[in-house]
């Protein structure tokens, strides 16, 4: 029960109105400068460098047929792991992050998945001058294929190759 009797008016307390006025200006200003982002994480593994003897040319050629890979350089993409595909996907114009042909890469990756249905790994080998924007987009394309509102897993375990 609310006690109505015996309330004492202590008189005016601290005047908070100017402080509140400052905050009412500061909070919207800060909120306007804030950029809200939806973040995601893409897992990757670094390549394991071994000290074993390098394989001979025949073994390397055999390996290049088995290992699914995408090389990124200043001319476009170079696909590895499929005999039936044209390995080179050039940029649509002078190579820049937006002119790499991601649609053709997507088609090639779907075709590679059909050739290697059990494979989960893909080696991504970017050139030194390639900006991270392109690498991130290739990783996202390689992980899953979104068509018709449904996402299908392609190669969810990318390995980033760092040239020594």
């Amino acid at each position, binding site marked *: 029960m609310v006690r*109505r*009797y*015996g*309330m*004492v*008016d202590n008189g*005016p*307390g601290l005047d*908070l*109105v100017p*402080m*509140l006025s400052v*905050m*009412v200006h*500061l*909070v919207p200003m*800060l*909120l306007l*400068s*804030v950029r809200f*982002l*939806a*973040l*995601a*994480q*893409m*897992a*990757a*593994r*670094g390549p*394991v460098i071994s000290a074993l003897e390098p394989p001979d040319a025949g073994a390397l050629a055999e390996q290049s047929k088995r290992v699914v890979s995408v090389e990124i350089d200043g001319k476009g993409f170079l696909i590895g792991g499929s005999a039936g595909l044209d390995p080179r996907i050039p940029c649509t114009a002078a190579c820049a*992050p937006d002119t790499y042909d991601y649609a053709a890469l997507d088609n090639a990756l779907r075709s590679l998945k059909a050739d290697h249905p059990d494979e989960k790994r893909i080696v991504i080998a*970017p*050139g*030194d*001058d*390639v*900006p*991270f*924007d392109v*690498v*991130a*987009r290739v*990783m*996202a394309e390689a*992980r*899953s294929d*979104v068509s018709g509102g449904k*996402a299908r897993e392609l190669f969810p375990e990318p390995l*980033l190759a*760092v*040239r*020594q």
Partner: protein
Amino acid sequence: MSDVRRDDPRLRRQRRRERAARRLPTNPYLQITSMTDMFTLILAFLLSFYDPAQVDAPSLVLPSVAALGGEKEGIKLEVRKDAVVLDGVVLLPLDGKGGIESGTERSGRILTAVRDALQPRVADPAPTLLVACDKTVPFSVIGDVLSSANAAGFHDYRFVVESTR
């Protein structure tokens, strides 16, 4: 007659109400203490994330990709245009275009400063390394940073990106 009026319960109740009304506080001020509390908390929250350096010329712009990923906690390593930063501490200044300055101490692709800073953070099992890279930084720098992390004992890492989904 006056005794009758004094004992009238309705009059007694009315007089009691009048006395109580005279005693009620008459504070003319709006009670804004709780509102000030709330604004103080919001202000403190926003100020703790406010970085004036990111407003005009942001040195870390994440790439936007259609990626979904389960979030995991880990050690945060940022590769900005102007520096490599570990948990808010600058490990290595870059040249402002994402290039490594000449004269930086290194062994092959391994950057000594990055490796030495990461080595004490390796535990068993090694924690995940969350790498946030500016989208314009060339892969040569990221490759060097990843090689250094690899040399320190981190083999699994996760790239932080802006999701467009």
